[in-house]
C-alpha cells in the first residue's frame, strides 16, 4: 500500500537533487559571464593594471573555470560556502543570519496570507457573483496590481508617518525579543500579504468553482447540506492540488522575490545581501545565494508535488 507512494516520493527527491545540480552549473556559468570582474569592482575608480593583477592573483581568479567549479562544488557539499571576496569573511554565518531573517519575514507573512486567502476564496465561492465576491476580488486584484514599493510607501505614509502605529524601519538584530521583532516587521508583513493574497485567493475560488459543477456536489445539495458545509467538506478537499501548487509558488516568491520590500523597509534579508554582492562582483556570495534560492524553489515545488499526490486517490493508487 505505502510502497508506490514511497517510490514516487523517492523519485521526486532524486529529480529535485538533479535539478539542484543543474542549477548550480547554471549559477556558476552565469556568474562567470557577468561584465567586469570582482577585482575591478572592488578597486573601482582606483584600479591600476598592477593592483588589478595583484588582486586577481590573490583571489585565485586566474585559475581555469572548470577547476574552480569543482572546487566550489566539493566545498559546498562539505558545508563550506567559501569566503566573501569583498570583505574576507566566511559566507556561511553571514548568509545563515540573513536567511533566518528572510524565512522569519516570509513565515510571518505566510501564516497570515495562506489561511486568509483560502478563507476569502471559500467566501467568494459561497457568495459568487454577489457583492462579497466582487468586493474581495476587486480589493485583492487591486493590491496585487500595485507595485510593491508603492504599497510600501502608502502604508509607511499612513501607518508610520501620519498615525505612528508601526515603525517605518523593519531593522531586526540580535537581542530583540520575539514581540519586538514582530512589531518591527508589521509593515512589510502587511505589504507582502497584500502582494500574494490575490493570486492564492483567485486560484482557490477557481479550483473550487470547477469542482462545484460535479455531480457529487449536486448530490450534497439535494441532501440538503448547508452551502458552506458543501464547499468546505466536499468541494475543497478535491480542489487542494491546484491550490497547494499556487500556495507554494507564492511561498517561494516570499523567500526569493522580496528584495524591493526589503529595501523600502530596510529589512536585513537575503535579497539586499545578494544585490550588494552582485554589484561588487562578489562571486562566491552570489553563487551561495543562488544555490539557496534554487534549493528553496525546488524544495517547495517538491512539497507541492507530494501533497498533490497524497491528496488525490487516483495518483495515490496508480493502476
Amino acid at each position: 500500500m505505502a510502497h508506490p507512494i514511497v517510490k514516487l516520493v523517492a523519485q521526486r527527491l532524486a529529480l529535485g537533487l538533479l535539478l539542484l545540480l543543474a542549477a548550480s552549473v547554471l549559477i556558476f556559468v552565469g556568474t562567470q559571464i557577468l561584465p567586469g570582474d570582482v577585482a575591478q569592482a572592488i578597486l573601482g575608480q582606483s584600479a591600476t593594471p598592477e593592483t588589478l593583477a595583484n588582486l586577481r592573483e590573490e583571489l585565485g581568479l586566474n585559475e581555469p573555470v572548470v577547476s574552480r567549479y569543482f572546487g566550489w562544488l566539493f566545498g559546498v557539499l562539505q558545508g563550506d560556502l567559501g569566503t566573501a571576496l569583498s570583505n574576507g569573511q566566511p559566507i556561511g554565518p553571514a548568509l545563515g543570519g540573513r536567511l533566518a531573517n528572510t524565512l522569519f519575514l516570509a513565515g510571518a507573512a505566510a501564516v497570515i496570507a495562506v489561511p486568509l486567502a483560502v478563507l476569502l476564496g471559500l467566501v467568494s465561492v459561497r457568495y459568487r457573483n454577489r457583492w462579497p465576491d466582487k468586493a474581495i476580488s476587486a480589493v485583492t486584484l487591486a493590491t496585487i496590481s500595485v507595485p510593491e514599493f508603492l504599497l510600501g510607501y502608502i502604508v509607511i505614509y499612513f501607518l508610520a508617518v501620519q498615525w505612528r502605529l508601526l515603525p517605518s524601519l523593519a531593522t531586526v538584530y540580535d537581542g530583540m525579543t520575539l514581540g519586538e521583532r514582530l512589531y518591527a516587521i508589521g509593515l512589510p508583513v502587511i505589504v507582502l500579504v497584500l502582494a500574494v493574497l490575490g493570486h492564492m485567493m483567485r486560484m482557490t475560488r477557481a479550483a473550487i468553482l470547477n469542482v462545484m459543477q460535479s455531480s457529487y456536489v449536486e448530490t450534497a445539495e439535494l441532501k440538503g447540506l448547508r452551502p458552506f458545509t458543501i464547499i468546505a467538506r466536499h468541494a475543497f478537499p478535491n480542489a487542494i492540488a491546484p491550490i497547494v501548487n499556487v500556495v507554494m509558488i507564492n511561498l517561494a516568491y516570499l523567500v526569493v522575490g522580496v528584495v524591493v520590500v526589503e529595501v523600502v523597509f530596510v529589512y536585513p534579508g537575503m535579497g539586499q545581501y545578494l544585490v550588494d554582492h552582485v554589484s561588487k562582483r562578489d562571486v562566491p556570495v552570489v553563487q551561495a545565494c543562488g544555490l539557496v534560492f534554487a534549493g528553496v524553489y525546488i524544495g517547495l515545488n517538491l512539497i507541492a508535488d507530494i501533497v498533490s499526490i497524497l491528496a488525490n486517490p487516483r495518483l495515490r493508487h496508480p493502476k
Partner: protein
Amino acid sequence: MKDDLAKLVDWIDAGGLSRRGFLGRVSAFGLAAALGSAMLPGQARAEEPKKGGVLKIGLGGGESTDALDPGLADGPVAFNVNRQWGDTLVNVTPEKVLEFRLAESAEAGEGSTVWTFKIRKGVKFHDGSEMTVEDVVATFKRHSDENAKSGAFGIMQGISDIKADGENVVFTLSTGNADLPYLLADYHLIVQPKGGAENPNAGIGTGPYKVKTAEPGVRYVFEKNADDWDTSRGHYDSVEFLVINDATARTAALQSGQVHMVNRVDPKVAKLLSRAPGVKVRTASGPGHYVFIMHCDKPPFDNKDLRLALKYAINRQELVDKILDGYGSVGNDIPINKSYPLFDETLPQREFDLAKAAEHYKASGHDGSPIELIVADGAFPGAVDAAALFQATATQAGIPLVIKRVPDDGYWSDVWNVKPFCASYWGGRPVQDQMYSTAYLSTADWNDTKFKNKEFDDLILSARAETDETKRKEIYAKVARILWEEGGVICPMFNDFIDGVSETVAGWVDDPNLELMNGFASAKTWFA
C-alpha cells in the same frame, strides 16, 4: 530696526545663518552693545551642550560588503563610520582653516619637501593603550602600501619617506607640496594601533565613540568613549547608524521620528521636507560636482572648437533648477568653485550661448554624424534627465547630440574613463592641487578627459611647491583659464550636501567639506 532683528532671528531659526554670522550682522546694525545675550533666540545663544541620549542617524550609501578598515571606506556610510571611532592628524574646518587634532602643530622646511608634525601626547586608543609616534608612522606606512588598497594611496604616493623623530613624525616628499596638511585631513588616514597592521578591521581608534556593533549594510552601534582626549565633543551616550539606502524610506524614518538625522535628501523632495513639522533641511555648498567628460585625444573631441561648441550649448542654470531643484550652483567648466582656498573669482562665467555654440560647431568642421553621449542613472542623480536637457539645447545649436543610456552595472569599469564622452561626478578634494592632480595632470590614472597639456602640468607642479600664497593664487588663475578654454570637461553644476535634521538636535553647523557636518554631526551636536 526691530523688523530687521526679527528677520535675522527667523533666518537663524531657518538655519540660514550661523551664530557668528548673526553676531556679525547685528554689530553691523550697531546693535551689539544694546543686545543682551538673553535676547538671542535658540541657536544664536551660546548654548551649553547637554549630555546624554541615543542619537539615531539614517544613512544612505551603505552595503553589506562594507569593511571597518578605514582605508577601504568608499561610501557615505563607511565615511561616517570612520568619523565615529577614529581621528586624523588634522581636520579642515567649515571655514577651510586647518585644525590640529592628533597632531599639535606642523612645520614645513626645505621648500615644503620636509614636513614635521608634532604628535599629541596622552591620547588613548579604545583598547586602553597609549597612542605613540610609532603608531602614527605605521598608519601612514600602511596606507602607502599598494597591497593595503587604501583610498588614500594616491595622496601617499607623493611621500617618499615617513619616520619618527622623538615626539614628531617627519614626512619627506619627492616634490614640494605646500598643501600637505590639507591632504592629511583625508578621512581614510585614521591613526590605528600599530597602524592597523595586525587587524585593519578592528575599529580601534581614538575617536569620540567606540564601535559596539557593526553589521555592514544594516546597522552600527557606537558608545561614548569615556576616555576621550577631546572632552569638548561626543555629547551622546551612544550613536546608532541605520543603513537606509532608499531615499523615500530615509525621509519617512526622519518624519516618523525613528531617526534624528538623515544624509542625502533627494533634492526633489527637499523643499517639501523642509515644510514638514519637526524637521529641518540643512544644506552646504561643497566641492562636489557633476560633469560630462570628453576625451581630448579621440575624434571628434580632439577638436577644440567642437569641445567649445558643446560647452556653450549647455544651459547650466536650467540644469541647476531642474536636476538639483535649486540645491546647487552653476559650474564653469573647471572642477574648482569658491569652496576651495585660492579660488580665482575673476574667471568669467561661461554663459549658455547658442549662437557661439553654432559658430564653434561650424568652425570645427564636424561631418554631422551623431555625437554619442553615454549616460547611466548611477553616473550622478538625475544624469539621464540632465543629458536629455543637454541634448535638447545642443540640437537647437545644430549639434547632433544623441544619448545612449546604459545600465549602472559596470558603468565605472566599462564606460567611465574608457568611452570618449560620458557623464560622471566628482566628490571634490580639499585643495585645488589635489583635484587637478587627481584628474587633470597628463600622468594621472584618473585623467578621465585625457587632457594632456605641458604648460598646464608645469604650472600645477610649480604651484605645489610655491609657498607665497599670492603667487600660488596667480598660478591657479592661469591653470583655471587653460582648462576653461582647452579642457575636455563640461561642468554644468556643483551640488549641495542636503541633510535632514530633527528639531530636537542642537549645535548644528553647516560644513561645506562633506555631508552631516563633515561626518562630525554626532561628535558636535546634542539634544536640546
